[in-house]
Protein backbone atom coordinates (compact mmCIF):
# COMPACT_ATOMS: atom_id res chain seq x y z
CA UNK A 1 0.00 0.00 0.00
CA UNK A 2 2.77 2.44 0.94
CA UNK A 3 6.02 2.61 -0.95
CA UNK A 4 9.01 4.62 0.19
CA UNK A 5 11.71 5.15 -2.39
CA UNK A 6 15.03 6.71 -1.47
CA UNK A 7 13.45 9.28 0.83
CA UNK A 8 15.52 12.17 2.28
CA UNK A 9 14.57 14.97 4.62
CA UNK A 10 16.84 17.97 5.19
CA UNK A 11 16.45 21.30 6.96
CA UNK A 12 19.00 23.73 5.53
CA UNK A 13 22.24 21.81 6.00
CA UNK A 14 20.95 19.41 8.63
CA UNK A 15 20.10 15.98 7.30
CA UNK A 16 17.36 14.41 9.36
CA UNK A 17 16.51 11.31 7.38
CA UNK A 18 18.46 9.70 4.59
CA UNK A 19 18.07 6.89 2.19
CA UNK A 20 14.78 5.39 3.36
CA UNK A 21 13.60 2.48 1.24
CA UNK A 22 10.79 0.20 2.28
CA UNK A 23 7.28 -0.99 1.63
CA UNK A 24 4.25 -1.37 3.86
CA UNK A 25 1.31 -3.69 3.26
CA UNK A 26 -2.29 -2.96 4.21
CA UNK A 27 -3.04 -4.06 7.78
CA UNK A 28 0.48 -3.89 9.18
CA UNK A 29 1.11 -2.43 12.64
CA UNK A 30 4.46 -0.74 12.59
CA UNK A 31 6.20 0.66 15.65
CA UNK A 32 8.85 3.33 15.18
CA UNK A 33 11.51 3.70 17.86
CA UNK A 34 14.75 5.62 18.09
CA UNK A 35 16.56 8.19 20.18
CA UNK A 36 15.23 11.74 20.55
CA UNK A 37 15.69 13.80 17.42
CA UNK A 38 16.31 10.79 15.20
CA UNK A 39 13.59 11.80 12.79
CA UNK A 40 10.89 9.27 13.60
CA UNK A 41 8.33 11.99 14.29
CA UNK A 42 9.45 13.79 11.14
CA UNK A 43 8.75 10.63 9.21
CA UNK A 44 5.30 10.38 10.79
CA UNK A 45 4.61 14.00 9.84
CA UNK A 46 5.51 13.19 6.26
CA UNK A 47 2.96 10.38 6.29
CA UNK A 48 0.49 12.85 7.79
CA UNK A 49 1.21 15.46 5.15
CA UNK A 50 2.38 18.29 7.41
CA UNK A 51 5.98 17.87 6.24
CA UNK A 52 7.29 17.25 2.76
CA UNK A 53 10.24 15.08 1.77
CA UNK A 54 13.27 16.89 0.37
CA UNK A 55 14.11 14.09 -2.05
CA UNK A 56 12.66 10.74 -2.97
CA UNK A 57 9.12 9.46 -3.13
CA UNK A 58 6.47 8.59 -0.59
CA UNK A 59 3.69 6.77 -2.42
CA UNK A 60 0.23 5.76 -1.28
CA UNK A 61 -1.33 3.28 -3.72
CA UNK A 62 1.27 4.26 -6.29
CA UNK A 63 0.52 8.00 -6.09
CA UNK A 64 2.47 10.64 -4.13
CA UNK A 65 0.87 11.06 -0.72
CA UNK A 66 -1.13 14.33 -0.35
CA UNK A 67 0.90 17.15 1.16
CA UNK A 68 -1.83 18.22 3.57
CA UNK A 69 -3.76 16.24 6.16
CA UNK A 70 -6.92 14.49 4.96
CA UNK A 71 -9.40 11.82 6.01
CA UNK A 72 -7.25 8.94 4.71
CA UNK A 73 -4.86 9.35 7.60
CA UNK A 74 -6.08 9.59 11.19
CA UNK A 75 -3.82 10.96 13.90
CA UNK A 76 -3.52 10.81 17.68
CA UNK A 77 -0.97 13.19 19.18
CA UNK A 78 0.53 12.97 22.65
CA UNK A 79 -1.67 15.90 23.65
CA UNK A 80 -4.05 18.54 22.22
CA UNK A 81 -5.74 15.82 20.18
CA UNK A 82 -9.30 16.52 21.27
CA UNK A 83 -11.39 19.69 21.07
CA UNK A 84 -11.53 21.28 24.53
CA UNK A 85 -14.82 23.11 23.90
CA UNK A 86 -16.83 19.98 23.09
CA UNK A 87 -18.05 17.28 25.44
CA UNK A 88 -16.90 13.70 24.94
CA UNK A 89 -19.95 12.85 22.85
CA UNK A 90 -19.78 16.07 20.82
CA UNK A 91 -16.10 15.46 20.11
CA UNK A 92 -16.91 12.17 18.42
CA UNK A 93 -20.07 13.36 16.66
CA UNK A 94 -18.11 16.29 15.24
CA UNK A 95 -16.15 13.78 13.16
CA UNK A 96 -19.31 12.88 11.28
CA UNK A 97 -20.08 16.54 10.76
CA UNK A 98 -16.66 17.16 9.26
CA UNK A 99 -17.24 14.39 6.73
CA UNK A 100 -20.14 16.13 5.05
CA UNK A 101 -19.82 19.08 2.76
CA UNK A 102 -20.81 22.61 3.72
CA UNK A 103 -19.19 25.33 5.75
CA UNK A 104 -20.31 24.61 9.29
CA UNK A 105 -20.24 20.85 9.80
CA UNK A 106 -23.32 20.90 12.03
CA UNK A 107 -25.57 17.86 11.77
CA UNK A 108 -29.35 18.02 11.89
CA UNK A 109 -32.23 15.62 12.37
CA UNK A 110 -31.76 12.08 11.15
CA UNK A 111 -28.11 12.53 10.30
CA UNK A 112 -27.45 13.73 13.84
CA UNK A 113 -29.29 10.78 15.35
CA UNK A 114 -27.36 8.33 13.19
CA UNK A 115 -24.03 9.95 14.07
CA UNK A 116 -24.99 9.86 17.73
CA UNK A 117 -25.73 6.14 17.58
CA UNK A 118 -22.39 5.42 15.92
CA UNK A 119 -20.54 7.65 18.35
CA UNK A 120 -22.18 5.96 21.34
CA UNK A 121 -21.22 2.53 20.04
CA UNK A 122 -17.62 3.58 19.53
CA UNK A 123 -17.39 5.27 22.92
CA UNK A 124 -18.72 2.09 24.48
CA UNK A 125 -15.94 0.19 22.74
CA UNK A 126 -13.19 2.45 24.11
CA UNK A 127 -14.78 2.47 27.56
CA UNK A 128 -16.00 6.06 27.81
CA UNK A 129 -19.77 5.48 28.09
CA UNK A 130 -19.82 6.85 31.61
CA UNK A 131 -18.28 10.21 30.64
CA UNK A 132 -20.37 11.32 27.66
CA UNK A 133 -21.21 14.79 28.99
CA UNK A 134 -17.78 15.65 30.35
CA UNK A 135 -15.38 18.15 28.87
CA UNK A 136 -11.80 17.07 28.10
CA UNK A 137 -10.30 19.05 30.98
CA UNK A 138 -12.38 16.93 33.36
CA UNK A 139 -10.91 13.68 32.00
CA UNK A 140 -7.72 11.87 32.99
CA UNK A 141 -4.88 11.63 30.50
CA UNK A 142 -5.77 8.05 29.62
CA UNK A 143 -9.43 8.89 29.03
CA UNK A 144 -8.48 11.82 26.83
CA UNK A 145 -6.37 9.53 24.65
CA UNK A 146 -9.21 7.01 24.46
CA UNK A 147 -11.44 9.82 23.27
CA UNK A 148 -8.87 10.93 20.70
CA UNK A 149 -8.68 7.38 19.36
CA UNK A 150 -12.48 7.01 19.20
CA UNK A 151 -12.68 10.32 17.36
CA UNK A 152 -10.07 9.26 14.83
CA UNK A 153 -11.73 5.88 14.29
CA UNK A 154 -15.17 7.30 13.48
CA UNK A 155 -13.45 9.04 10.58
CA UNK A 156 -12.65 5.57 9.18
CA UNK A 157 -9.06 6.36 8.19
CA UNK A 158 -7.10 3.77 6.21
CA UNK A 159 -3.96 4.65 8.10
CA UNK A 160 -3.86 5.49 11.79
CA UNK A 161 -0.85 7.48 12.96
CA UNK A 162 -0.02 7.53 16.66
CA UNK A 163 2.62 10.05 17.75
CA UNK A 164 3.79 8.91 21.19
CA UNK A 165 0.18 8.54 22.22
CA UNK A 166 0.87 7.00 25.61
CA UNK A 167 4.09 8.84 26.49
CA UNK A 168 2.40 10.90 29.20
CA UNK A 169 0.47 8.03 30.82
CA UNK A 170 1.14 5.90 33.90
CA UNK A 171 2.54 2.41 33.19
CA UNK A 172 -0.62 0.61 34.36
CA UNK A 173 -2.89 2.71 32.18
CA UNK A 174 -0.46 2.31 29.33
CA UNK A 175 -0.93 -1.48 29.41
CA UNK A 176 -4.72 -1.02 29.14
CA UNK A 177 -4.24 1.30 26.21
CA UNK A 178 -2.05 -1.28 24.46
CA UNK A 179 -4.86 -3.82 24.72
CA UNK A 180 -7.34 -1.29 23.39
CA UNK A 181 -5.19 -0.31 20.41
CA UNK A 182 -4.50 -3.92 19.46
CA UNK A 183 -8.17 -4.78 19.67
CA UNK A 184 -9.23 -1.79 17.56
CA UNK A 185 -6.50 -2.47 15.03
CA UNK A 186 -7.84 -6.01 14.48
CA UNK A 187 -11.51 -5.04 14.43
CA UNK A 188 -11.17 -2.03 12.14
CA UNK A 189 -8.51 -3.59 9.88
CA UNK A 190 -6.28 -0.52 10.09
CA UNK A 191 -2.74 0.12 9.03
CA UNK A 192 -1.04 1.60 12.09
CA UNK A 193 2.16 3.57 12.52
CA UNK A 194 3.09 4.27 16.11
CA UNK A 195 6.02 6.40 17.24
CA UNK A 196 7.22 5.61 20.75
CA UNK A 197 10.06 6.28 23.13
CA UNK A 198 9.51 2.94 24.77
CA UNK A 199 11.39 0.10 23.12
CA UNK A 200 9.41 -2.52 25.04
CA UNK A 201 6.22 -1.04 23.69
CA UNK A 202 7.63 -1.45 20.20
CA UNK A 203 8.73 -4.96 20.89
CA UNK A 204 5.46 -6.44 21.99
CA UNK A 205 2.91 -4.36 20.15
CA UNK A 206 2.15 -4.69 16.48
CA UNK A 207 3.67 -6.73 13.68
CA UNK A 208 6.77 -4.87 12.68
CA UNK A 209 9.43 -2.82 14.40
CA UNK A 210 11.48 -0.08 12.81
CA UNK A 211 14.49 1.31 14.59
CA UNK A 212 15.69 4.73 13.41
CA UNK A 213 19.38 5.45 13.89
CA UNK A 214 22.34 7.03 12.18
CA UNK A 215 24.62 4.64 10.34
CA UNK A 216 27.23 7.24 9.53
CA UNK A 217 28.54 9.61 12.15
CA UNK A 218 30.85 12.56 11.66
CA UNK A 219 31.93 13.73 15.13
CA UNK A 220 32.90 17.17 13.76
CA UNK A 221 29.61 17.72 11.97
CA UNK A 222 26.87 15.76 13.72
CA UNK A 223 24.23 17.20 11.40
CA UNK A 224 25.93 16.03 8.22
CA UNK A 225 24.29 12.62 8.17
CA UNK A 226 20.71 11.65 8.84
CA UNK A 227 19.07 8.64 10.43
CA UNK A 228 17.61 5.76 8.52
CA UNK A 229 15.89 2.51 9.38
CA UNK A 230 18.62 0.33 10.92
CA UNK A 231 16.39 -2.54 12.01
CA UNK A 232 13.23 -3.71 10.28
CA UNK A 233 12.07 -6.68 12.30
CA UNK A 234 8.93 -8.78 12.35
CA UNK A 235 7.59 -8.65 15.89
CA UNK A 236 7.09 -11.98 17.64
CA UNK A 237 10.05 -13.76 16.05
CA UNK A 238 12.71 -12.06 18.09
CA UNK A 239 14.34 -13.13 21.32
CA UNK A 240 15.48 -11.00 24.19
CA UNK A 241 19.08 -10.85 22.94
CA UNK A 242 17.89 -8.82 19.95
CA UNK A 243 16.18 -6.40 22.33
CA UNK A 244 19.37 -5.93 24.30
CA UNK A 245 21.39 -5.44 21.16
CA UNK A 246 19.07 -2.68 19.92
CA UNK A 247 19.05 -1.13 23.35
CA UNK A 248 22.85 -0.99 23.24
CA UNK A 249 22.77 0.52 19.77
CA UNK A 250 20.48 3.41 20.50
CA UNK A 251 21.59 3.67 24.06
CA UNK A 252 19.59 6.43 25.62
CA UNK A 253 16.13 4.94 25.28
CA UNK A 254 15.48 3.55 28.72
CA UNK A 255 16.05 6.64 30.88
CA UNK A 256 14.01 8.81 28.53
CA UNK A 257 10.81 7.04 29.42
CA UNK A 258 10.66 8.43 32.89
CA UNK A 259 11.00 12.06 31.96
CA UNK A 260 7.82 12.07 29.90
CA UNK A 261 5.86 11.78 33.12
Amino acid sequence: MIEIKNLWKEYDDTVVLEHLNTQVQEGEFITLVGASGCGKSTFLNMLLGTEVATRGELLLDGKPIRNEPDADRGIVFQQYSVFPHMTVLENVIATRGFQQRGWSGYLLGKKYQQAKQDALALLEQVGLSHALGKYPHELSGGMRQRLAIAQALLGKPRILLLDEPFGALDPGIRADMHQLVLQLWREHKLTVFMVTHDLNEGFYLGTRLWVFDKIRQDPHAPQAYGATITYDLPVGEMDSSTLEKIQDDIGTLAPERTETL
Partner: protein
Amino acid sequence: MKRLINAAPSGRLQVFLGLLPFALLLLIYLAGSEARLELNPNDKLLPSLTQMGDALQRLAFEPSRRTGEYLFWQDTLSSLQRLGMGIAIAASLGLALGMITGALPFASAGLSPLLTVLSLVPPLALLPVLFIVFGLGEVAKVALIAIGITPMIAREIQRRTLEIPREQLVKAQTLGANTAQTMTRVLLPQLLPKLIDAVRLSMGAGWLFLISAEAIASTDGLGYRIFLVRRYMSMDVILPYVAWITLLAFVMDFMLRQLNRRLFPWHQ
Protein backbone atom coordinates in the same frame (compact mmCIF):
# COMPACT_ATOMS: atom_id res chain seq x y z
CA MET B 1 6.51 34.98 61.88
CA LYS B 2 6.33 34.07 58.22
CA ARG B 3 8.26 35.93 55.60
CA LEU B 4 6.21 38.77 54.14
CA ILE B 5 6.22 37.09 50.77
CA ASN B 6 4.47 34.02 52.26
CA ALA B 7 2.11 35.67 54.75
CA ALA B 8 -1.46 36.01 53.39
CA PRO B 9 -4.49 37.63 55.10
CA SER B 10 -7.41 35.39 56.07
CA GLY B 11 -10.79 35.81 54.34
CA ARG B 12 -12.32 38.37 56.69
CA LEU B 13 -9.13 40.35 57.04
CA GLN B 14 -8.84 40.47 53.28
CA VAL B 15 -12.30 42.03 52.95
CA PHE B 16 -11.45 44.53 55.68
CA LEU B 17 -8.16 45.48 54.03
CA GLY B 18 -9.95 45.89 50.73
CA LEU B 19 -12.58 48.26 52.16
CA LEU B 20 -10.13 50.26 54.26
CA PRO B 21 -8.80 52.60 51.53
CA PHE B 22 -12.36 53.37 50.37
CA ALA B 23 -13.39 54.28 53.91
CA LEU B 24 -10.27 56.40 54.40
CA LEU B 25 -10.78 58.32 51.16
CA LEU B 26 -14.42 58.98 52.04
CA LEU B 27 -13.45 60.14 55.50
CA ILE B 28 -10.79 62.50 54.20
CA TYR B 29 -13.27 63.91 51.68
CA LEU B 30 -16.00 64.43 54.26
CA ALA B 31 -13.63 66.11 56.68
CA GLY B 32 -12.31 68.41 53.95
CA SER B 33 -15.79 69.19 52.71
CA GLU B 34 -17.04 70.06 56.16
CA ALA B 35 -14.08 72.29 56.90
CA ARG B 36 -14.50 74.27 53.69
CA LEU B 37 -18.28 74.61 54.01
CA GLU B 38 -17.89 75.89 57.54
CA LEU B 39 -15.71 78.73 56.30
CA ASN B 40 -17.90 79.47 53.30
CA PRO B 41 -21.35 77.88 52.96
CA ASN B 42 -21.38 78.73 49.24
CA ASP B 43 -18.16 76.85 48.50
CA LYS B 44 -18.58 74.71 45.39
CA LEU B 45 -15.38 72.71 45.34
CA LEU B 46 -16.12 69.99 47.91
CA PRO B 47 -19.92 69.67 48.18
CA SER B 48 -21.39 67.70 51.07
CA LEU B 49 -23.21 64.41 50.55
CA THR B 50 -26.54 66.18 51.04
CA GLN B 51 -25.76 68.70 48.34
CA MET B 52 -24.79 65.94 45.92
CA GLY B 53 -27.95 64.05 46.86
CA ASP B 54 -30.06 67.14 46.16
CA ALA B 55 -28.43 67.66 42.78
CA LEU B 56 -28.95 64.05 41.84
CA GLN B 57 -32.55 64.18 43.05
CA ARG B 58 -33.15 67.21 40.83
CA LEU B 59 -31.62 65.58 37.74
CA ALA B 60 -32.96 62.08 38.18
CA PHE B 61 -36.46 62.50 39.59
CA GLU B 62 -37.65 65.93 38.49
CA PRO B 63 -38.36 66.67 34.82
CA SER B 64 -36.11 69.32 33.35
CA ARG B 65 -37.83 72.71 33.22
CA ARG B 66 -36.55 73.31 29.71
CA THR B 67 -37.23 69.99 27.93
CA GLY B 68 -39.40 68.00 30.35
CA GLU B 69 -36.93 65.08 30.31
CA TYR B 70 -35.40 63.33 33.26
CA LEU B 71 -31.87 64.41 32.40
CA PHE B 72 -29.95 61.84 34.43
CA TRP B 73 -31.73 58.89 32.82
CA GLN B 74 -31.74 60.47 29.39
CA ASP B 75 -27.97 61.00 29.66
CA THR B 76 -27.43 57.44 30.80
CA LEU B 77 -29.56 55.98 28.02
CA SER B 78 -27.86 58.01 25.28
CA SER B 79 -24.39 57.19 26.51
CA LEU B 80 -25.06 53.49 26.90
CA GLN B 81 -26.58 53.34 23.43
CA ARG B 82 -23.51 54.93 21.88
CA LEU B 83 -21.12 52.79 23.87
CA GLY B 84 -23.10 49.61 23.19
CA MET B 85 -23.28 50.20 19.45
CA GLY B 86 -19.62 51.16 19.20
CA ILE B 87 -18.50 48.12 21.13
CA ALA B 88 -20.82 45.76 19.27
CA ILE B 89 -19.44 46.95 15.94
CA ALA B 90 -15.86 46.74 17.18
CA ALA B 91 -16.39 43.26 18.61
CA SER B 92 -17.88 41.84 15.41
CA LEU B 93 -15.30 43.47 13.15
CA GLY B 94 -12.46 42.61 15.50
CA LEU B 95 -13.53 38.98 15.77
CA ALA B 96 -13.84 38.58 12.02
CA LEU B 97 -10.54 40.32 11.25
CA GLY B 98 -8.66 38.63 14.05
CA MET B 99 -9.89 35.16 13.23
CA ILE B 100 -9.27 35.47 9.51
CA THR B 101 -5.79 36.88 9.91
CA GLY B 102 -4.99 34.34 12.60
CA ALA B 103 -6.22 31.35 10.65
CA LEU B 104 -5.36 32.10 7.02
CA PRO B 105 -1.74 32.91 6.15
CA PHE B 106 -2.80 34.72 2.98
CA ALA B 107 -5.19 37.00 4.89
CA SER B 108 -2.49 37.59 7.45
CA ALA B 109 0.04 38.57 4.79
CA GLY B 110 -2.44 41.02 3.31
CA LEU B 111 -3.99 42.54 6.42
CA SER B 112 -1.61 42.23 9.37
CA PRO B 113 0.70 45.14 8.42
CA LEU B 114 -2.33 47.38 7.84
CA LEU B 115 -3.81 46.36 11.18
CA THR B 116 -0.54 47.10 12.96
CA VAL B 117 -0.31 50.59 11.45
CA LEU B 118 -4.00 51.37 12.09
CA SER B 119 -3.67 50.36 15.71
CA LEU B 120 -0.93 52.98 16.09
CA VAL B 121 -3.10 55.87 14.87
CA PRO B 122 -4.37 57.74 17.94
CA PRO B 123 -8.17 57.55 17.54
CA LEU B 124 -8.79 60.89 19.22
CA ALA B 125 -6.68 62.57 16.58
CA LEU B 126 -9.18 61.22 14.06
CA LEU B 127 -12.15 62.72 15.87
CA PRO B 128 -12.14 65.97 13.86
CA VAL B 129 -12.04 63.91 10.67
CA LEU B 130 -15.04 61.92 11.86
CA PHE B 131 -16.97 65.07 12.71
CA ILE B 132 -16.20 66.47 9.27
CA VAL B 133 -17.15 63.28 7.47
CA PHE B 134 -20.13 62.12 9.52
CA GLY B 135 -21.34 65.44 10.92
CA LEU B 136 -21.93 66.13 14.58
CA GLY B 137 -24.62 63.47 15.04
CA GLU B 138 -24.60 60.02 16.57
CA VAL B 139 -22.64 58.36 13.76
CA ALA B 140 -19.39 60.18 14.49
CA LYS B 141 -19.45 59.25 18.17
CA VAL B 142 -20.22 55.60 17.54
CA ALA B 143 -17.60 55.54 14.80
CA LEU B 144 -14.95 56.93 17.15
CA ILE B 145 -15.57 54.14 19.65
CA ALA B 146 -15.65 51.48 16.93
CA ILE B 147 -12.52 52.77 15.19
CA GLY B 148 -10.66 53.13 18.45
CA ILE B 149 -11.37 49.64 19.74
CA THR B 150 -11.53 47.46 16.63
CA PRO B 151 -7.75 47.22 16.10
CA MET B 152 -7.24 46.37 19.77
CA ILE B 153 -9.75 43.53 19.63
CA ALA B 154 -8.63 42.31 16.21
CA ARG B 155 -5.00 42.01 17.27
CA GLU B 156 -5.92 40.31 20.52
CA ILE B 157 -8.11 37.77 18.70
CA GLN B 158 -5.40 37.21 16.11
CA ARG B 159 -2.94 36.39 18.88
CA ARG B 160 -5.45 34.07 20.53
CA THR B 161 -6.12 32.28 17.25
CA LEU B 162 -2.43 31.62 16.77
CA GLU B 163 -2.29 30.27 20.32
CA ILE B 164 -4.73 27.46 19.59
CA PRO B 165 -2.58 24.34 19.24
CA ARG B 166 -1.79 23.47 15.65
CA GLU B 167 -2.58 19.85 16.54
CA GLN B 168 -6.29 20.64 16.77
CA LEU B 169 -6.36 22.05 13.24
CA VAL B 170 -4.48 19.05 11.88
CA LYS B 171 -6.80 16.72 13.77
CA ALA B 172 -9.92 18.36 12.33
CA GLN B 173 -8.49 18.01 8.83
CA THR B 174 -7.73 14.32 9.35
CA LEU B 175 -11.37 13.93 10.29
CA GLY B 176 -12.34 15.40 6.95
CA ALA B 177 -12.91 19.07 7.80
CA ASN B 178 -12.47 21.77 5.15
CA THR B 179 -11.19 25.29 5.90
CA ALA B 180 -14.61 26.76 6.68
CA GLN B 181 -15.55 23.88 8.97
CA THR B 182 -12.27 24.09 10.82
CA MET B 183 -12.85 27.79 11.39
CA THR B 184 -16.49 27.58 12.47
CA ARG B 185 -16.27 24.44 14.59
CA VAL B 186 -12.74 24.49 16.02
CA LEU B 187 -11.58 28.10 16.07
CA LEU B 188 -14.72 30.23 16.44
CA PRO B 189 -16.17 28.56 19.57
CA GLN B 190 -12.81 28.70 21.30
CA LEU B 191 -12.41 32.38 20.40
CA LEU B 192 -15.78 33.56 21.75
CA PRO B 193 -14.72 33.54 25.42
CA LYS B 194 -11.49 35.28 24.37
CA LEU B 195 -13.61 37.88 22.59
CA ILE B 196 -15.55 38.60 25.77
CA ASP B 197 -12.25 38.98 27.62
CA ALA B 198 -10.98 41.31 24.91
CA VAL B 199 -14.16 43.40 25.14
CA ARG B 200 -13.76 43.63 28.91
CA LEU B 201 -10.23 44.92 28.47
CA SER B 202 -11.26 47.50 25.88
CA MET B 203 -14.20 48.90 27.87
CA GLY B 204 -11.94 51.46 29.53
CA ALA B 205 -10.86 52.81 26.17
CA GLY B 206 -14.50 52.72 25.06
CA TRP B 207 -15.58 55.01 27.89
CA LEU B 208 -12.67 57.31 27.18
CA PHE B 209 -13.68 57.75 23.55
CA LEU B 210 -17.35 58.10 24.45
CA ILE B 211 -16.81 60.86 26.99
CA SER B 212 -14.38 62.70 24.73
CA ALA B 213 -16.81 62.67 21.81
CA GLU B 214 -19.71 63.77 24.01
CA ALA B 215 -17.66 66.54 25.57
CA ILE B 216 -16.89 68.05 22.19
CA ALA B 217 -20.15 67.78 20.31
CA SER B 218 -23.35 66.51 21.84
CA THR B 219 -26.67 67.58 23.30
CA ASP B 220 -26.97 64.87 25.89
CA GLY B 221 -25.00 62.04 27.48
CA LEU B 222 -23.06 61.52 30.67
CA GLY B 223 -19.88 63.04 29.26
CA TYR B 224 -21.79 65.99 27.82
CA ARG B 225 -23.40 66.73 31.19
CA ILE B 226 -20.22 66.78 33.25
CA PHE B 227 -18.45 69.01 30.77
CA LEU B 228 -21.51 71.28 30.58
CA VAL B 229 -21.85 71.84 34.32
CA ARG B 230 -18.10 72.35 34.66
CA ARG B 231 -18.78 75.94 33.54
CA TYR B 232 -20.73 76.52 36.74
CA MET B 233 -18.22 74.57 38.83
CA SER B 234 -21.08 72.22 39.77
CA MET B 235 -19.03 69.62 41.60
CA ASP B 236 -22.28 68.46 43.20
CA VAL B 237 -23.30 67.13 39.77
CA ILE B 238 -19.91 66.08 38.45
CA LEU B 239 -18.95 63.86 41.38
CA PRO B 240 -22.16 61.77 41.42
CA TYR B 241 -21.93 61.43 37.63
CA VAL B 242 -18.37 60.15 37.85
CA ALA B 243 -19.41 57.70 40.55
CA TRP B 244 -22.33 56.58 38.38
CA ILE B 245 -20.07 56.02 35.35
CA THR B 246 -17.72 54.00 37.53
CA LEU B 247 -20.61 51.91 38.79
CA LEU B 248 -21.87 51.30 35.25
CA ALA B 249 -18.40 50.23 34.14
CA PHE B 250 -18.13 47.88 37.08
CA VAL B 251 -21.54 46.31 36.46
CA MET B 252 -20.81 45.79 32.77
CA ASP B 253 -17.50 44.15 33.54
CA PHE B 254 -19.14 41.92 36.12
CA MET B 255 -21.90 40.91 33.71
CA LEU B 256 -19.44 40.06 30.95
CA ARG B 257 -17.44 37.93 33.35
CA GLN B 258 -20.57 36.07 34.45
CA LEU B 259 -21.62 35.62 30.83
CA ASN B 260 -18.28 34.04 30.06
CA ARG B 261 -18.60 31.64 32.95
CA ARG B 262 -22.17 30.64 32.10
CA LEU B 263 -21.76 30.24 28.36
CA PHE B 264 -18.38 28.55 28.28
CA PRO B 265 -18.06 26.11 31.16
CA TRP B 266 -15.10 24.41 29.45
CA HIS B 267 -13.07 27.63 29.50
CA GLN B 268 -10.92 28.18 32.58
